[in-house]
C-alpha cells in the first residue's frame, strides 16, 4: 500500500480527549466525528486537512480513553497514516483493528517537520521524507497484524478465518 501526503505535526502525549472530545461521543457516525477531530488542540485541523495527509507526532500518541472514535475520526478526516515515536497501546490496537495505517518510528517522528511531503511504503515499513530527502525504516508489523491490516481490520480478518474454516 503506497501512501503519500503532507504532514500535520503534533507533540507528545496527544490524548484521545483532544483527538475527539467526549462531548461529541453521543454519535458514532464517522463523518460527524471527523468534523471535530483534533478540535481541542488544533482548531484549524478540520479546515486544512486534505485526503492523504499524514499525522506525525511524538511519544504516547493516543493515550487515555479506549474510544475507537479517535482512530475512526482520524481516518474519516482523510488521514492516510499516523507516524509517531510511540503509541499508547489501546490506540495502537484500535488503529490496526479498524485498518488505519500507523507506524512507530522515533527517528522519523523527530526529524519530519510540519508541512513536509512524505511517502510511506507500509509493507516495507519505509518512510520517505520527499522534502528533505531523508529515508527511515519502521519496525515491520508481525505477520498476524499484517494479515489484519490486509483484511481491512479485525472483523474482516475474523470473517476470512471463518470462511476458510467452513471451506475446509
Amino acid at each position, binding site marked *: 500500500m503506497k501512501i503519500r501526503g503532507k504532514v500535520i505535526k503534533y507533540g507528545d*502525549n496527544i*490524548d484521545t*480527549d*483532544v483527538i475527539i*472530545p*467526549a*462531548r461529541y*461521543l*453521543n*454519535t*458514532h457516525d464517522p463523518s460527524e466525528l471527523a468534523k471535530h477531530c483534533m478540535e*481541542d*488542540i488544533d482548531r484549524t485541523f478540520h479546515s486544512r486537512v486534505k485526503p492523504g495527509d499524514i499525522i506525525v507526532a511524538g*511519544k*504516547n500518541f493516543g*493515550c*487515555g*480513553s*479506549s*474510544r*475507537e*472514535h479517535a*482512530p*475512526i475520526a482520524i481516518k474519516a478526516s482523510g488521514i492516510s497514516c499516523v507516524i509517531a515515536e*510511540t503509541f*499508547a*497501546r*489501546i490506540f495502537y*490496537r*484500535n488503529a490496526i*483493528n*479498524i485498518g488505519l495505517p500507523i507506524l512507530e518510528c522515533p527517528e522519523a517522528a523527530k526529524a519530519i517537520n510540519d508541512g513536509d511531503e512524505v511517502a510511506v511504503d507500509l509493507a516495507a515499513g519505509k518512510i520517505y521524507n520527499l522534502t528533505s530527502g531523508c529515508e527511515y525504516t519502521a519496525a515491520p508489523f*508481525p505477520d*498476524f497484524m499484517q494479515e489484519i491490516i490486509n483484511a481491512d*481490520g*479485525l*472483523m*474482516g480478518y*475474523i*470473517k476470512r478465518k471463518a470462511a476458510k474454516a467452513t471451506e475446509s
Partner: protein
Amino acid sequence: MAMTMTQKILADHAGLEYVVPGQLIKAKVDMVLGNDITSPVAISEFRKTGFKKVFDVNKIAIVPDHFTPNKDIKSAEQVRYIREFVKEMGIVHFFEVGQMGVEHALLPEKGLVVAGDVVIGADSHTCTYGALGAFSTGVGSTDMAAAMATGEAWFKVPEAIKFILKGKPGRWVSGKDIILHIIGMIGVDGALYKSMEFTGDGISHLGMDDRFTIANMAIEAGAKNGIFPVDEKTIEYMKEHSTKPYKIYEADEDAEYSKVYTIDFSEIKPTVAFPHLPENTRTIDQVGDIKIHQVVIGSCTNGRISDLRIAAEVMKGRKVHPDVRCIIIPATQKIWKQAMKEGLFDIFIDAGAAISTPTCGPCLGGHMGILAKGERAVATTNRNFVGRMGHTESEVYLASPAIAAASAIAGRIASPDEL
C-alpha cells in the same frame, strides 16, 4: 520457564504451557464489557460482519454509564440501539438506570469478575479488576465485537514492571495518593505496553477499595494491566460478592521484570496531579494557593463506599466554600444506599454538597458538572487532559477523596489538616 502473574493467567487462557514477553497469543475471555459510548460501535461492527449470535450470553456485560441517565436525544438513541441488541441476543448482564453503576465499581460488586479471570472491556479503565488478581485490560470497540462473536481476543504477552510495596500509609494517604505518586515517578508512558505487578507486605494495609483505585489508574502510566496478588482480603471480598469459581495465580520467584521499584508507603504524602497530565504531580505541601470552583467526588477511581466515608469524615460539621460547587457521585446503587444508611448524605447535604445518581458524567466532560472557561476543579477522577471536564481553558486537579473534600471546604486545594 518462570512467569509473572499476568503471563501465567494468559498462558492458561491460551491453552499454553508457558508464554514469553512479545509472544502473540489468542486467549479465551471470561468477561467482555462495554458501555454506552463504546458498545454502539462494537454492535455495528458485529452486525456488519454478519454474526447472528454472541458466544455466551452470560459472559458479556453492558453498562450504559457514561452519559446516563441519558443526557440528550443522541445519547438516548445510542442506548436504545444497545438495548435492542441486548434483547435480541439475550445478553444477561445489562444494567440500566436504577440497576446501573459506574462499570468498574459495578462488575466486582455484582461478582462478575474474580481472581484468575481474563477480562477485556471497551473502556480503558477495565484494568481496575487487577485488584482482584484478574488479568483485565481496556480494548476498543472492534476488539469487543470480535470477542462477543468468538469469545477470544489477541494479545501481545507483556513484559512486567514489579512494584514492591512496603510500609504503612500515613494519615490521609490513600490508594489514590499511592498511584499518583507512582505515575509522577514513572510518567504517563512509564509502563507503556507493560504489566504493573504489585507485590510486598505493604499491600496488607490496603483495603480492596484502595487496590481498585491503584489498579484503575495503571492505564494512566500507559500500562496494559495492573495486578495484585490474592490475599485474605481479596478472598473475603469475592466470597461476599460472587459465586463464580476463582483461581489464584502467583508469580514465580524467579520471574523476569524489566524494572523493579520499591515504594515505601510511609514516605508518601497526599499527592495532587496538576493540569494537564496525571504525571504532573506535587505533594500537598507543594501545591501553593490554588483557588477552585468545583469539586467532584466519585468515578470508577474513587466513588466507592470507603471514599465517601473519608469525604464525610472531612466534611462533617463544615460548610462547602461559597465559591465552590461540590458534587458527590456514589458509583453504584448499592454504594448509594449504604452511604445513605450510614448518614453520610446528611453530612454532605448539611455541608452544601449535591449528591448525584451514579454516572461517569463530569469525569469525561459528559454532563452533571461541566466547567466553564477559566474554571478549576479538584476531582477524584483519573484524567486531567485539556478539556477533559469542559472548556479547553478549564483545569482539573486530580486528588484523593480526603484532599477533594478538604478543598471543597477551603475553596482552594488543601489538606484536611489545614481546616
